[in-house]
């Protein structure tokens, strides 16, 4: 393999850069309620970072996303371990899971609104419900894929269910469980922002809607860019961790 030339390495950035330049050129000096030139968006982003509004809103959104993930994802993980290990329990739960899983996350927002009112609890509930199912199903699949001979060894050694989970299954399934966690982080952030846009007046999502209603396109687009950066950064960081910790990748 020859080393890539600089053009080959950076060509992915060429088109976005050209698009940004074109946007700057087209929108310069244009008064619009919907669009703003990239330089003004950047300035607004800088300003938001400086006066702390952006970080405050990010903290609200991230707290809801991470908290919801911890609750829903944690429960999903435990239940996934259980259903992965106990075939009869998995068969018994199948119908209930299949009936509840396709519930669109945002349909639950009004229920949470009715029960909790505006605030963190509404968002935590919606995020937790949404993260529960992918974590459950992917963990269950990960446990199922554990080499059966390992489980036989555990049986011969007379391990209890808890010991089997802690000593054999979790270490073997960990790479794939981490993939499930990485996907769930992405889902949690998306759901948190969506809940804020649709119902809950706090965080980045509400900031987006508020900026649109205030006819401040540069603030709206700055928030959009920030949400994008946040999501991309989280997923890239987790992917890097995954490669570092489980270098050989998920065992087949």
């Amino acid at each position, binding site marked *: 393999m020859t080393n890539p030339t600089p053009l*080959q390495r950076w*060509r*992915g*950035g*060429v*088109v*976005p850069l050209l698009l940004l330049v074109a946007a700057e050129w087209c929108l310069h000096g244009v008064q619009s*309620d*919907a*669009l703003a030139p990239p330089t003004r968006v950047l300035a607004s982003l800088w300003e938001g970072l400086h006066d702390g509004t952006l970080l405050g809103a990010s903290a609200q959104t991230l707290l809801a996303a991470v908290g919801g993930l911890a609750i829903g994802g944690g429960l999903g993980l435990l239940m996934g371990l259980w259903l992965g290990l106990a075939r*009869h329990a998995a*068969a*018994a*739960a*199948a*119908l*209930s899971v*299949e*009936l*509840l899983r*396709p*519930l*669109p*996350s*945002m*349909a*639950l927002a*009004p*229920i949470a*609104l*009715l*029960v909790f009112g505006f605030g963190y609890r509404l968002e935590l509930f919606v995020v937790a419900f949404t993260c529960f199912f992918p974590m459950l199903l992917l963990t269950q699949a990960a446990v199922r894929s554990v080499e059966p001979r390992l489980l036989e060894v555990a049986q011969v050694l007379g391990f209890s269910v808890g010991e089997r989970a802690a000593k054999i299954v979790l270490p073997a399934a960990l790479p794939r469980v981490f993939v499930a966690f990485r996907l769930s982080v*992405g889902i949690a*952030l*998306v759901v948190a*922002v*969506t809940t804020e*846009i*649709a*119902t809950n007046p706090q965080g980045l*999502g509400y900031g*987006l*809607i508020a*900026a*649109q209603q205030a*006819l401040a*396109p540069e603030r*709206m*687009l700055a*928030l*959009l860019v920030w*949400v*994008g950066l946040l*999501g*991309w950064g*989280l*997923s890239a960081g987790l992917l890097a961790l995954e490669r570092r910790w489980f270098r050989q990748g998920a065992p087949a």
Partner: protein
Amino acid sequence: MSNDRLNWRGAASSVTVTAVLLAGWAVVTHFEWVSPVFLPSPQATAQALAEGLRDGDLLALAAGTIERMVYGWVLASLIGMALGSLIGGSSTLRAWLQPMLEVVRPLPASALIPVFIALIGLSPAMVLLVIAFGAMWPVLLSTVHGFAAVEPRLSEVAQVLQLSRREFIFKIGLPNALPDALAGMRLSLTIALILAIVGEMLASQQGLGTAIVMAARSFRAAELFAGVALLGLIGFVSNALLGAAERRLLRWQR
């Protein structure tokens, strides 16, 4: 034979667990351990559902949501597959564009709703565009991925046969990318339903999304739960239909 018995027992226990959960819901509401303002009984929910369906109110609302979801999803699938084939079919375009697509991918589609509102206004067209745009990404990216994963020897065969780009896309690329594209379409159907609900809520279009928000605001819990149950049913049925279609379309693979 014994496997059959096991399946039967699994199905029976599965139904039992669901029935027990429903019974638990009924017991909780019967003794009012949770205020009926928040949690209506299953009977009240079923009654609200039956009444809504009989009057046709609920049916009309559901039809609005389904229509939005399906139109947006079809648009998203067509555009996603077309763009995905164009980009995926050429290794040059892939090299130049894929990094940008990967960066845009984790962006929540709902975060674009304010931008679309600012551009187009609170109209049905806005909701449709948001759905189409948001649901397009899984199809687009998985189609590109499917094209990239075409067996290199097949590409060589295409070169030897001097297939044109169009012939390559339709004869080799698309059939190869179909499993990926279909998996993307399944994900995008879920996204389409969620975006239809959010779009309705924000743009006050007639549909189940708006209806459940109104029901929640006026503390009509039974109607709220009936609407949510209906949305769950829409998600369940559409997913099952697509799964069946997928198995049929991909039968040649096995």
